[in-house]
């Protein structure tokens, strides 16, 4: 099939005027990557003034913690305050087939309610990325910001302890926990518990919510990631299915953004975000080269498997050839 290349300036113009389908198309251009995505990114640069104003909120937590339901409720609260809101909801791609079940919308549908028509939701598959996000997320956020959305909520895949790409991708990171999720030792483990700007204890109507809030507060007493050392992550209780606590959550997000702006940390975080994306892109290219090299080096691998060299020796040999060429 020979399809004409998309008219990117035209699409962007229609998308900025609020045309839903054009926004959807542009996000696909970002996902497909390559020259078209580059051209689109260059076009959005001309709208940088507007992108400064989009608050990028990351929502992360374990599978089933209620991230999507909460994101839907948050989107309704945002719409209630007159904010144009977009959601990018990431779910995992199969490492075997590349396929995915993108099942975040179904949860949001129930909680976004009458705001449905004013919220733009896009589901995205990880397509091989392992940090809880898709490679296309930063570009998608730029496009949505250029389209005039005030808030872009990025919901990660369900994560464990170490998938923390979101912290480089968002201005404000929300970590969602549940009653019965862990104890004081879990709360002090390194990784995801260190990246929150706001903690949410969702399903707070269930037994054990007080214990979870206490464990997190005690953990924070021992020190935390702050903004200029002045921001202590608040711990907010929510019941996403009935909307309880979402206004308080939004207040916390707004307060955090205000603090980021007042301290100049917002620009620092955005610079780190760009650095992280540049790094990811280079890593991606290097991994592609490595994959090709390993395919070509099957004889070296076979030697190692036969016990004629160690894995370390094989790695050194292949790495040296990769660098040479």
């Amino acid at each position: 099939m020979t399809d004409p290349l998309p008219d990117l300036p035209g699409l962007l113009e229609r998308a900025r005027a609020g045309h839903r389908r054009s926004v959807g198309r542009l996000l696909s251009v970002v996902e497909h990557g390559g020259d078209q995505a580059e051209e689109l990114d260059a076009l959005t640069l001309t709208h940088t003034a507007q992108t400064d104003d989009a608050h990028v909120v990351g929502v992360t937590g374990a599978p089933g913690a209620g991230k999507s339901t909460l994101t839907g409720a948050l989107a309704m609260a945002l719409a209630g305050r007159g904010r144009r809101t977009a959601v990018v909801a990431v779910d995992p791609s199969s490492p075997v087939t590349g396929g995915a079940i993108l099942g975040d919308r179904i949860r949001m549908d129930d909680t976004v309610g009458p705001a449905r028509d004013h919220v733009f939701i896009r589901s995205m598959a990880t397509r091989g990325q392992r940090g809880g996000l898709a490679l296309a997320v930063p570009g998608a956020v730029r496009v949505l910001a250029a389209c005039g959305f005030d808030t872009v909520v990025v919901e990660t895949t369900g994560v464990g302890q170490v998938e923390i790409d979101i912290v480089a991708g968002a201005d404000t990171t929300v970590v969602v926990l549940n009653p019965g999720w862990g104890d004081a030792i879990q709360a002090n483990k390194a990784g995801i518990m260190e990246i929150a700007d706001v903690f949410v204890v969702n399903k707070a109507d269930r037994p054990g919510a007080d214990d979870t809030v206490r464990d997190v507060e005690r953990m924070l007493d021992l020190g935390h990631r702050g903004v200029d050392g002045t921001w202590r992550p608040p711990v907010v209780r929510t019941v996403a299915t009935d909307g309880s606590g979402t206004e308080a959550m939004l207040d916390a997000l707004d307060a955090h953004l205000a603090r980021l702006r007042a301290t100049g940390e917002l620009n620092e975080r955005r610079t780190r975000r760009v650095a992280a994306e540049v790094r990811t892109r280079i890593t991606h290219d290097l991994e592609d080269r490595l994959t090709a090299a390993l395919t070509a080096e099957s004889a070296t691998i076979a030697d190692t498997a036969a016990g004629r060299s160690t894995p370390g020796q094989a790695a050194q040999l292949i790495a040296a050839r990769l660098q040479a060429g």
Partner: protein
Amino acid sequence: MSAPADAPVRVVLAKLGLDGHDRGIKVVARMLRDAGCEVVYLGLRQTADSIVAAAEQEDADVIGLSMHNGGHLALARKMLDAMRAADLDLPLVIGGIVPDVDMPALTELGVTAVLGPGASADDVVATVRRAAGR
């Protein structure tokens, strides 16, 4: 414009209207996932407008509806009317309990393909891929 040939086929799957039988659509979602498709699963009690909105935002290649309440003729017409009103020119595949005698009428309405009770995973995947043109 459409997606590059090597991009995953994106399918929006939904139940339109009052029809609580979602076992079949869940099995189909899994079949398509295992064939490398990206399935945006909307689930139960969708309206024609909510499906159109999702298909636009998700930039779907195909819309798939599951029907088990005997309302397929009326619902297909409703869906296609909503798509036309939104100028959304996408293939519409219907699966579920559809009597053979209604097939010509559905085709006449503009439904791209119908998958009945005996359809295998291969049938489902081949039909969706053909509908998507990939």
